[in-house]
């Protein structure tokens, strides 16, 4: 990863308010191709909101989002902000994979059906091809034997791996993980981390919000500590988790988690 490249994703002065609470406060962020960025911070610090703003699941109040250099989500005409057309927003989301804390698998579809759904409905691929892609993705996350099973019969870890396969089936340019292991039993966390690691090794660009500091330390190229809607600190895992961390707030947060 070199910082001379154009950033894949750039956020400029992003602000998101809920009534009079500022969830995300004028945040600037650049994510470069192949980079693994981990965002940590206490609950309610705006991590998830920031992540969800990237693929426009949250509507931002101010700021600019650039994806591969082009402005997305909003267009400014005569000084007024307009929403992009729905089809433009859908096209952007198709290039950004997202994994949720609570999986949100489609319960009425089998594992294979869940993974096929994107290629089939959004990319309008023929069902044979969609099936082939989906089977490949399920194999990648180690669930070839669960293809024809409904989500209700899967364990939490298996569900999350299907969700990852579902996002990957769209061949996204970047993957967003919103606390992917927070809803899992501790013994199931490992299999999901393993899957994400494998993905990282293949060079996938990813932004991960997590509370697992060990995982963040292992995987991240860069770690951001977020609090009250702003970035409090930013650096390599060594810089942030290292013994010479001087910021009292960050140290107490980390101590409480470890």
């Amino acid at each position, binding site marked *: 990863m070199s910082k001379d490249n154009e950033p894949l994703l750039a956020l400029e002065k992003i602000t998101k308010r809920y009534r009079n609470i500022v969830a995300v406060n004028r945040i600037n962020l650049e994510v470069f191709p192949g980079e693994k960025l981990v965002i940590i911070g206490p609950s309610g610090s705006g991590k998830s909101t920031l992540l969800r703003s990237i*693929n426009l*699941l949250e509507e931002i109040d101010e700021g600019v989002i650039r994806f591969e250099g082009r402005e997305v989500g909003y267009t400014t005409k005569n000084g007024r902000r307009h929403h992009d057309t729905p089809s433009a927003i*859908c096209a952007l989301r198709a290039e950004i994979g*997202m994994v*949720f804390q609570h999986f949100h698998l489609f319960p009425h579809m089998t594992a294979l059906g869940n993974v096929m759904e994107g290629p089939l*409905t959004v990319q309008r691929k023929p069902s044979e091809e969609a099936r082939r892609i989906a089977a490949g993705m399920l194999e990648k996350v180690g669930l070839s034997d669960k293809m024809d099973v409904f989500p*209700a019969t899967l364990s939490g870890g298996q569900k999350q791996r299907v969700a990852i396969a*579902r996002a990957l089936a769209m061949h996204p340019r970047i993957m967003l993980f919103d606390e992917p292991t927070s809803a899992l039993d501790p013994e199931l966390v490992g299999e999901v981390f393993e899957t994400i690691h494998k993905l990282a090794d293949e060079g996938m660009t990813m932004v991960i919000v997590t509370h697992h500091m060990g995982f963040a330390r292992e995987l991240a190229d860069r770690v951001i500590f977020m609090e009250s809607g702003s970035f409090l600190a930013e650096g390599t895992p060594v810089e942030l988790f290292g013994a010479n961390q001087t910021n009292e707030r960050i140290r107490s947060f980390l101590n409480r988690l470890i």
Partner: protein
Amino acid sequence: MKYLTGRAATALLFLCLAVSPLFAGNSYDRTFREASDLMAQGELDQALSVLQNIPPPSGDEEGTAFISARMQSARIHASRNDNGKALEACREVLNLYPDNSEALNFEAALERKEIPRWRSFLADCVKFLPVLGKGAMMTLLLVLCTMLISPFGGLLIALGRISTIPPLSGLCWFIIWFFRGTPLLLQLFFIYYGLPSAGITLSPMLSAVIGLGLNYSAYLGEIIRGAIQSIDHGQMEAAKAIGMNYRQAMFRIIIPQTYKRLMPPIGNEFIALIKDTALVSTIAMVELMRSADQMFNTYFNITALVLAAIIYLAMTTLFTFVFEKIEYRAGIYEQR
């Protein structure tokens, strides 16, 4: 004063007695009086023989007394379960007056009494079922038409209600408000009897389908809206996250998940619908209720209504099982 009143009463009594033979004329009043006295004493045989004294009318003589006497005899025989003699008395009247309705009805009733109850019920069934069956087919047709139309109407209304376009959601709100807020009977009257004044004349069947269709669409609209909004919001987000647009997310992800929870309330509505179709009998549509009513009014025979009730029950039972089956199938993915 008291004295005067007493005198007047006595005078009146005498006057009545004096005048009475004029009214009695050549009648058999005394004979009837004698017979009823005997009956009151329980002397039925004697009463019968007294009544037997009244002969058939001769020439152009009036036959009222004869008819009354014979019918009275018939009733006495019938009350002693002597149907043969009762019938005989009836037929004596019918021989002279074949159109006498009292004798005809009594004869029919006696004949019914002669055969066992279950056989007369079967005979009624054979008589009523073809007509009721035809009516039941119309009811079924009406029910199936409404069942086919209203889920789609309901879905449109539900999607309209939750849409973010104010005029559309307002219109759908109005439709629900109107059709849920006025009696179905009134709506049917309005469509069948009211629309012709606006130049639109519809057949009873079409009026019924439109009325029931609109009414049930409004009800199902609210049910479907509730089901859609009860689906976890994360499902919509997950669908959007893989790039689906609103329409794709709705029809591929959200709506299919509502089927299982839609079935119990929709089943309820459709069972109510089967019975609500009875209302269209008021707009000249000959369906099951109307057929049963016609049979009942023609023959004064409660069997027609009993049979109609059985047919309604059969229909609701059948549909109950069908809906249960569909509900089970719709929720099969939730089984572990």
